[in-house]
């Protein structure tokens, strides 16, 4: 066990430490995530003052917004640039000569960088808890399953990010790709507005994508909007997306790498 994951752990640890060096980013992430959270709270308090909308009352919305903050901070704070830069600056040619699996190494690094956002998350959640006193999970089991869905967000976020980063084999810059992904993620995950508010056809579109698992899935489990069977179903779907994106990325990568070997990086 130890030897099988030693390399991955090393990559994760390096990425984690590298992120820790940018202490300013913690403060920035906290201000940005906290600011967005406060704006959402202000808006929904006003809107839900007269009663529940689409099944959300002010109590459940407070928990919902905090859950959105957690995933947003972890996912938007990760070091996706590092993977993109390796491709854009041609460093990948060197990586391919190393006896480590490129995708697995990047996954370890990426997840390491996601872990480095945890202090920001903790401070943000603690602050939100004190300010807004959200309700606890519907049941202890729901709380546990919510935690599982948060854990699954790590590899899922990597799969999604990595797959989109591979677009850099065909573009010169990464910024636009990143923005596209973040815009779609913010909207279709339910971070911006719960999916329940959307017309059914838009909900269908969202559920056909991996995005809802970044906010809607953990929130639905936490708030008890699904029963245990439903929660397990959602987790299964989340896991399936994780695997699907992982292997899908392999196929795209093998295709893209031919470009590098043919054109010499």
């Amino acid at each position, binding site marked *: 066990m130890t030897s099988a994951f030693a390399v991955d752990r090393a990559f994760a640890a390096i990425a984690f430490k590298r992120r820790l060096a*940018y*202490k*300013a980013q913690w*403060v920035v992430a906290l201000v940005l995530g906290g600011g967005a959270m406060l704006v959402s709270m202000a808006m929904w308090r006003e809107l839900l003052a007269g009663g529940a909308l689409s099944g959300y009352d002010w109590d459940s919305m407070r928990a919902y917004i905090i859950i959105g903050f957690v995933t947003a901070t972890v996912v938007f704070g990760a070091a996706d640039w590092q993977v993109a830069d390796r491709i854009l600056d041609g460093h990948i040619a060197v990586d391919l000569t190393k006896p480590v699996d490129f995708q697995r190494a990047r996954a370890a690094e990426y997840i390491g960088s996601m872990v480095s956002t945890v202090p920001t998350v903790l401070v943000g959640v603690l602050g939100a808890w004190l300010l807004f006193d959200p309700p606890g999970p519907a049941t202890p089991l729901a709380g546990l399953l919510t935690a599982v869905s948060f854990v699954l967000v790590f590899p899922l976020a990597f799969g999604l990010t990595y797959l989109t980063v591979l677009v850099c084999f065909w573009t010169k810059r990464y910024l636009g790709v990143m923005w596209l992904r973040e815009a779609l993620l913010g909207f279709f995950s339910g971070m911006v507005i719960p999916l329940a508010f959307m017309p059914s056809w838009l909900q269908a579109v969202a559920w056909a994508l991996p995005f809802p698992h970044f906010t809607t899935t953990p929130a639905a489990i936490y708030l008890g909007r699904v029963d245990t069977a439903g929660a397990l179903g959602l987790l299964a779907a989340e896991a399936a997306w994780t695997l699907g994106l992982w292997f899908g990325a392999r196929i795209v990568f093998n295709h893209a790498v031919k470009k590098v070997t043919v054109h010499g990086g």
Partner: protein
Amino acid sequence: MPILEARSLTKTFRRPDKTSGFKGAVKHLVQRKYKNYTAVDGIDLSIEPGESVAYVGPNGAGKSTTVKLLTGILRPSEGTVRVMGRDPHTERIANAHDIGVLFGQRTQLWWDLPVEESLKLLKHMYGVSDADYKARIARFDELLDLGEFMPALARTLSLGQRMRADLACALIHAPKMVYLDEPTIGLDISVKDRLRAFLRELVDGGTTLLLTSHDLADIEEVCERIVVIDKGAVAYDGPIQQLKAHYITTKAVNLFLEGPADVDELKLKFPQYEWAAGEAPSEVTVTYESRHFTAAEVLGGLTAELAPRDLSLSEPSIEDVIRRLYAGELTK
């Protein structure tokens, strides 16, 4: 009247004594601790129009900082700079028309644009007329072969091409005073030769030049005057020839003997000279004071005694002199 005059020019950097990053910055706002570091310490320098001056010194001696002070990029902590009678920092815009600057380590080309676009932007920035622009580009093309990479994006250029393009950028407005900081760094021999020939022409055409370089061949081929600085202060200022005449008082001859050379024996036999073993066993180097001996005396005596198969003269090297200057062995 000198084109450039610096009086007791001093630059002290106040470095915040803090840990890096945001937290360090915030902490620094509260505590305010600084360390002082004097990069340039009371330099006096006066350059007449048309002079070509080499500005040399070991790493960290304050060369680049001086150039940045003279070009108005930095404000002096103490002392004054006047370029054509103007303060280059406070009268930045007026000064800019008269000076050309090249930092060999950096490019001023627009990274994502073709070289030609960069030159055109500079043309407009300096208000160069169409006719002058055409004539200058043609001349640069002739001397530096700009044409081959004018349409190329700056980021695709080789180092040698980039440096030639940067030189064109620095000179497109025909500045009267030109500062070149390490213009041949990292270039291969053939490109270096070309640049030196170009700079020689520039100087012959009346442009005033201040050049820093680690490559002393640049200095010997392009400049007439040399200013050596060390630890932020001037260690020598005068004509290169004088520096040589003054300090290069020894000459060396390499002798290639028929059999292996015994240096100890030679030292006993000719104690008036310095002896050192050469690269091959049969090779030996003899060094003598040119003030005391003529070449004929030395070679006459030695060839008669040793009958060398071959011999060669070592050129006196300014590099040695400067190395000794840095080491503090020589004083003005």
